[in-house]
């Protein structure tokens, strides 16, 4: 296996008109370019979703505030949730998977490059459709506009009777379309991993990122589709006079809840499993040790994939299911915490006895570890149905899931950005700005989401555009809002770093972190064909074997 790959100079881009470059990007089927398109798309929506969050927080700064009307507020939290889950988190995970999986398994592209492009553009269309609702949603009596039914669109609130106009249709169709895009990408990832690994790369020698994306994609296949089915049913109700969720005709509101959460809960595991993948690649490199317990990490992830399909009704502990059902879902939810905890312990075991370097990617990893631990523990609190009867539907839940999504997923994504940006662009992100980004974001995150647990404990429900004074919620909400602004500033620092470093960053070279997986064997950025000749591997860390021929991993595996 050689590292004598010649990079195609991007200098040939000079002299081409911008229309040619644009055309190339729009018609590309190259997994690396599509990966970058997914990531840029997600970053744009991250900023938009962040603005929506700031609007929410300003409105909640004081009781009886009138920064926005209740109608606008309800649209803000619906769009914030929908955007962040479907047009930030999903695309960015698919973007990283697209970019990294073929490189890490020694392949030249994904299994179905045109399907890849089609899936991306479907997702992109979905996002545009959702946001078009702001201008195009006028229906009967001008009702319509952006959807305002919450990102779960519970029935019968989302039915024609209670959601006139087209706002709920924009929600439904946008997600249906981008859901098909997600399924396409999942099919692609699975086929790529199973059919296009380089010689010698048995499944047991695949990088954990490939394994975890395989599990994630398998989950996507059977998890997104229930949502698509439920949305088709909702459209049948809204347009063809169907009665799937029409309680006046004997339909069931809780049926929508079951279908939605059968999607909704495993979906959050779909989002976090790629983040586990990032941790499993980055922590070893910056601890200078292999991942502790590779087979257990694979097994735990597969376990999480299966068990997470059985926990969905912990979102429905308060709807009046009988005590046996509540007990069942309580225990399955607690059970899924076991393999998740095992992963935390294995990362701890990786760092233990290592030589930890606190570059920016590792700082974000450390943040992830502590914060994911706390998030998991508040999850255990919520898994206890009696405790949940108080906590559900309150700001405690909002704090919990933001702890996972921001403190866990976003921190892991930041780590991934700092780690793989050099590979994607050929330049290092600025360490100073990176550390500033980390500390600012950490402070803002904890100010907001640590304190946010407390109004929930004091009885503040979620999805309210204002609240009564004198209940002990005012000061806390004000501090939470201040933390949101701090996070906003930190995000701007990050965006500035991305842009400035693209032009002025230090040249990265092939392997700036002294890492061990195949993507670091090719140039930064890699040529269109990835590898001059298909590599052959004999262990889980092919570059370690190359760099330490006296003590290769292949001797021990």
């Amino acid at each position, binding site marked *: 296996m050689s590292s004598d790959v010649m990079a195609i100079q991007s200098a040939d881009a000079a002299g081409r008109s911008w229309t040619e470059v644009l055309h190339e990007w729009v018609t590309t089927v190259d997994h690396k370019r599509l990966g970058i398109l997914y990531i840029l798309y997600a970053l744009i929506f991250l900023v938009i979703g962040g603005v929506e969050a700031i609007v929410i927080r300003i409105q909640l700064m004081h009781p009886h505030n009138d920064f926005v009307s209740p109608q606008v507020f309800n649209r803000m939290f619906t769009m914030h949730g929908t955007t962040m889950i479907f047009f930030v988190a999903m695309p960015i995970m698919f973007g990283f998977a697209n970019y990294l999986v073929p490189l890490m398994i020694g392949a030249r592209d994904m299994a179905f490059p045109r399907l890849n492009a089609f899936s991306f553009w479907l997702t992109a269309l979905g996002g545009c459709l959702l946001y078009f609702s702001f201008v195009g949603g006028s229906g009967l009596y001008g009702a319509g506009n952006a959807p305002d039914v919450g990102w779960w669109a519970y029935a019968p609130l989302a039915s024609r009777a209670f959601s006139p106009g087209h706002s709920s249709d924009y929600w439904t169709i946008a997600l249906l379309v981008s859901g098909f895009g997600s399924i396409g990408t999942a099919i692609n990832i699975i086929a790529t991993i199973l059919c296009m690994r380089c010689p010698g790369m048995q499944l047991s020698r695949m990088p954990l990122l490939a394994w975890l994306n395989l599990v994630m994609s398998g989950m996507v296949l059977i998890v997104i589709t229930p949502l698509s089915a439920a949305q088709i049913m909702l459209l049948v109700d809204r347009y063809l006079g169907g009665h799937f969720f029409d309680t006046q005709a004997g339909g069931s509101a809780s049926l929508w809840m079951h279908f939605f959460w059968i999607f909704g809960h495993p979906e959050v595991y779909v989002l976090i499993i790629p983040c586990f993948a990032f941790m499993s690649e980055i922590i070893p490199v910056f601890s200078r040790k292999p991942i502790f317990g590779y087979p257990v990490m694979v097994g735990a992830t597969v376990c999480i994939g299966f068990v997470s399909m059985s926990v969905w009704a912990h979102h429905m502990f308060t709807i009046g299911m009988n005590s046996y059902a509540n007990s069942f879902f309580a225990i399955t939810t607690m059970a899924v915490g076991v393999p998740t905890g095992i992963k935390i312990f294995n990362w701890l075991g990786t760092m233990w006895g290592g030589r930890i370097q606190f570059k920016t990617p590792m700082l974000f990893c450390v943040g992830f570890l502590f914060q994911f631990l706390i998030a998991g523990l508040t999850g255990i609190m919520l898994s206890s149905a009696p405790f949940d009867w108080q906590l559900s539907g309150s700001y405690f839940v909002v704090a919990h899931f933001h702890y996972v999504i921001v403190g866990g997923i976003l921190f892991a994504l930041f780590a991934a950005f700092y780690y793989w940006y050099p590979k994607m662009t050929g330049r290092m992100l600025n360490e100073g700005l990176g550390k500033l980004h980390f500390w600012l974001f950490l402070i803002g995150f904890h100010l907001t989401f640590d304190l946010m647990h407390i109004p929930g404990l004091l009885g503040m*429900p979620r999805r309210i555009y204002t609240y009564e004074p004198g209940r*002990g919620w005012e000061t806390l909400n004000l501090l939470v809002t201040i933390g949101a602004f701090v996070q906003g500033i930190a995000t701007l620092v990050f965006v500035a770093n991305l842009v400035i470093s693209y032009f002025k960053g230090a040249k990265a070279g092939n392997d700036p972190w002294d890492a061990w997986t195949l993507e670091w064997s090719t140039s930064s950025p890699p040529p269109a064909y990835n590898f001059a000749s298909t590599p052959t591997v004999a262990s889980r860390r092919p570059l370690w074997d190359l760099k330490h021929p006296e003590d290769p991993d292949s001797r021990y595996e």
Partner: protein
Amino acid sequence: MTKKDKTEWRTVAARVTGILVILTGVLLAARMCVASPLGDHPIPNIFDPRSTPADALNQHSHFVLAITGLIFVVVFTLLAYAILKFRQTTANADREPAQVYGSTQIELAWTIIPILIVVVLFLAVARVIHAVQDAPKPATAVEVTAIGHQFWWEFRYPGLGLVTANELHVPVSDPAHPTPTFLKLLSADTDHSFWIPQLAGKTDLIPNRVNETWIDPHETGLFLGQCAQYCGTQHAKMLLRVYVDNPEEFAAWVSAQRQPANQNEKEAVGRHVFETTACLNCHAVGGTNGTGRFGPDLTHLMSRHTLASGAAENTPENLRLWIENPDAIKPGSLMPAMKLSDADLDALVRYLETLR
């Protein structure tokens, strides 16, 4: 200290600061618990229960918090230790550490211990679920049917023959002779959720479904809560007030509510306005033609402290404003602006003010 050492100390310092922030907030909240006087409970704190089911949930939550707290302390310590002890220093910067791939015994240990913790937790959880959800209803229980509407609460007492809205009165329950209140929960439109943190965990009101919950308050006073399941534009102002009365107060309230509407002849003009405009399509007033159930029963409107499910204090000015322009108080509520002339409106308000 090298630059790297400084970074790690800063990491740990940040962790500690974060925890201090949480502790401060918790202490702030705790201070509020201590500060609230008996008889008046402005802070709906789940850790300050005043009713049997809320007590059970509170005790159970302490158990869960203890276990999760212990796990947190152990894992946090290990992580912090690892970060400090195994960081790169000038001393070890030149060589790679021992490449350890795993350890079966350790994996077994940290699989089995969590499983045991889950088993213990689950047993505790199942016990409390059954105790609260499957509690038998004693013969002395007060029965209430709560019907959730967009955006107000209808309360019917089938055994006592009365109907009211938004403000629930229940008797205090003496542990020696318990008189809990058992509620049937229904919905007229979308999903809602009945949540008074100090009295019980929340239970949803779902259309085409009958849910049940119970409270067993052992202290008198006013308890606050609100709808906890997003139900539309004015979900935020679907507030709840539960008055736990001593037995005499409760009996007095019940008998007052069962009276027919006050027929004060001085306000016949106002009553005429009520009966000949669209008011009676939605609102019932005992003794008039008004039998509508889309809006709250107004027979004893003046016995309530708030209007529009807690959105405004029940004063004549607010009542007038509510009828004239509901959007000024609760924009998006389903009460239409009645477009009455000033004279009619004044007469109507005076009439409604007689409905004690």
